[in-house]
């Protein structure tokens, strides 16, 4: 069980959070302007990174706020967490 630092509430147990997948996946602004392959890439394809991975979490059983995290998928170390609208520290 990980200890995750919510940017607003501080370090909390993983059981308070929900995982939201890879971060920085931008929804295509005009979905109908792109072909099926490009749309499928957005809907389904993720990087499956080995090593440092930018991802989204939500403090579901706390402040209910979403934030970004950089986590090492090998060691599970969480390098940093930061609010959605800020640059990675």
């Amino acid at each position: 069980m990980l200890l995750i630092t919510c940017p607003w509430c501080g370090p909390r147990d993983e059981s308070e959070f929900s995982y939201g997948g890879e971060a920085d996946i931008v929804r295509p602004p005009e979905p109908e302007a792109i072909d099926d392959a490009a749309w499928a890439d957005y809907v389904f394809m993720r990087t499956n990174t080995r090593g440092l991975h930018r991802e989204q979490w939500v403090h579901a059983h706390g402040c209910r706020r979403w934030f970004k995290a950089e986590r090492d998928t090998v060691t599970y170390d969480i390098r940093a967490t930061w609010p959605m609208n800020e640059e990675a520290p």
Partner: protein
Amino acid sequence: MKARLPTGGRIDRDQPLQFRFNGQALTGFAGDTLASALLANGIHLVNRSVKLHRPRGIIGRGPEEPNALLQLGEGATALADQRATQVVLRDGMQARSINGYPSLKFDLMAIFDRAAKLLPAGFYYKTFMGPTGWWEQYEKIIRPASGMGRVPDGPDPDRYEKRDLHCPVVVVGGGPAGVMATLVLARAGVPVTLAHEQSQFGGGWLASRSSIDGAPAQDWLEAAIVELSQLEHVTLLPATTVFGHYDQHFLGAVERVSEIRPNAPLRERFWKIRCQHLILAAGAIERSIAFANNDRPGVMTASAVHEYIERYAVLPGRQAVVFTNNDAAYATAHSLHRAGAQVEIVDSRAQSGEQAQLARQAGMAVHINTQVSNTQGRLRVRSVELRHADQRCERLPCDLLAVSGGWNPSVHLHSHARGSLQWDDALASFIPQQDLAGVESIGAMAGVFDPNAALAGACEAAQRAATALGYATDATRAPVINPAEPGPTGLQALWRVAGRGPAFVDMQNDVKASDIELALREGYRSIEHVKRYSVLGFGTDQGKLGNILGLGIVSELVGMTPAQVGTTTYRPAWTPVTFGALVGTETGALFDPIRYTPMHDWHVARGAVFEDVGQWKRARYYPRAGEDMDAAVARECLATRDGVGVLDYSTLGKIDIQGPDAVTLLERVMVNNWQKLGIGRCRYGLMLDENGMVLDDGVTARLGDQHYLMSTSTGGAARVMAWLEQWLQTEWPDLDVRLTSATDQYATISLAGPLSRALMTDLGTDIDLSASAFPFMSLQTGTVAGVAARVQRVSFTGELGFEITVSADYGAHLWEQIFLRESAYAITPYGTEAMHVMRAEKGFIIVGQDTDGSISPLDLGMAGMVSARKDCLGKRSLMRSELQRDDRPQWVGLKPKAADAVIAEGAQIIATATPQGETPMHGWVTSSYFAPRLGYSFALGFVNAGRTRHGETLYAWDLDAGVIELEVTDPIQYDIEGARQNVE
């Protein structure tokens, strides 16, 4: 207690404890384990082995014990497979063997042993692979024969709790090294927690004659514990097993509270421990050697024999043979000798060393360059066969064989967190590579068996941890020990001795050296595969005795070094964990929150039958005397359609949406248009995921200029709320809109049926109920029966309907006001079942029952709802060719030809009345009822290209009912034009 020594040991001879083993009354002392007390009474034979039913005795002294797994107690508090070596003896304890019928000494199943050659590894897989279904029959015979313990016969009445602990440094293992490290940290002021598996700290020193300044070394250790217990920043957790080491220095531990305080209100406490720095001092476990019949009762590890003598004052045998390949077992020989046993030492090593010389000086016979090749005896070892270097054999009578094949550091807690292991040639075993940041292994666990070196290493590790945390360490130095027992020095690896007879590697699973040979012959090479094929190490002991031995045997057979063969990954748990401890208090009523509506008590008083919908308790139907569910539901449906029915709809999910961009949010998450919805109007909406599949549905009302109230399905409220929040926060932070869950704040009562308007009038309301002022799909606010209310004219039954929403505090009051008029209007309360039937007659979907995450609005025939004017979540996915295919499953009605044949929900739709072999599936059934108003049974579901197949005859099939002939129809069967809900 015929094997109890008159003096010595750490037992309290003034506190005798009575206990029973297989019904026999026995006595032990406080300080005993169940194992030491049994041995004190001369009992070695405690069990029959799991597969071959061979007689087995106590072999070990701790968590490694594979044989002495006993059943403790009776009834609901019964404990299965308890390692007698770790069970603290209690007065009145009742222990039983697990295998052995009719008795332990005469086991009918021992026939399996005679047939052992017919039962090699993989026997069950190969023999019982087929034909299909036969395994279930074999299993009925095989399972009882391979019994482990019996489970308790009722819910666990004991109490448990969970606690979190955050501590900068945690030390696991309260032997000398662990205590030394804790002392250094504590004196430096570092907050530190010391967890130890046993209730008494000391580890190996509890059985050692080593001294410090002329006093027993254990005295020094006990003084250290006293000092530590007085420090506020030190947490001592005796009788606490750290069973798992997870990411980020997170530990799971179970404290056996009742082991230290038998009358404590708590049996066990589950600790979730987080630390910055972890020091592991888990010790080491002695291993055996694979020789023929090495499993007879009376064959034990040398360290176990040593500990039973020195710590428990029990002499496990009077005529002992000690078989070793290293120096450590000589300590056992001396203990036996001092206790008055006759001792012969069999040393497999080629040369006579200093220890052999000392033993001879003490008067013991030492056979150098000699191996034990076999043993004899039925229920207890009676003699051993020696094979000398010149192949000459001789037989030595004995009643005890103490074996040391070397020592395995208990690397598990390092390995759990994916720490690497390295082969240590001197030990012929694995030690941790110190490759985990913030984690250090010390003492015997790190392969350091010399006590002075272990303590020095412990001090250094503690100082490193303190420094890393910014503490200055003081001048604490390790004391100088005068060691009394040799360590496993001079080891010459010996895995296997040739001989006739089964040589056991893993006794809990009856895995023999020949089974490993067989696995290799059958082509398995990876140690992981060999283990799985032979089930080596797959018992509850996880191969603490056998794994490295098995690895050594494999390496010899394939001609590689053990390091090349590789090791397996150790996984939690170190020893089995009580389920109750993991559950803690989260059981029974505290397992999951239960949500009740404000009108719940009324439903209970009316005899409602409830169903769980998410966490909600919802009234399913209200049976009258003599009614079954079908009769009650039929009555509720007809009464609603003919008069007025009342439903408690408070569980409906409600999300309050406010802000200038509220309508933009609705536009983006729903398939249909919201721009033109006027204030005071409501609209049915459908939500998709980005894959184009239906996520939820419900009616959303516009309450004000920038104010909407979205209703969701009962079970979907939290999911939809989280879904909207995710999009707002991660993708559309520019939208100025706020969401508030309002489900619990309101009570909603749904009136349905032709008399609902008259009832509304009679209740007293300032709302104009005329169709022109209050049309279908609109809302009004005002008072109803004197209560401020919001009323929506909507319908899920197809009848004229009003949904009255009031503050939750007024829910029960309004409900009672309605039922004051019960007889005047023949008001009928109806439950979720009648609601489901009536909506099915109307062909409405229930998300989660009729949809399953693979159904798009096109499949549902709702393509017309999807706005062409704008984009929304999931819309682009609908354009994919796969979703545009016209042979996809489509939403249809399914009408059995026999009016009373109710199809099972989940039944398959096929095109033949006589299915044989592989039959193509044409669809499936999602909802099915007898529809009282229609007068026939009716189902809803999906059929491939179903919209073009109305009128076609197909068949529903399920395992119980077989084939039911049906006609594909329109999903809407009742009031297709909607005249009844749109009534003037």
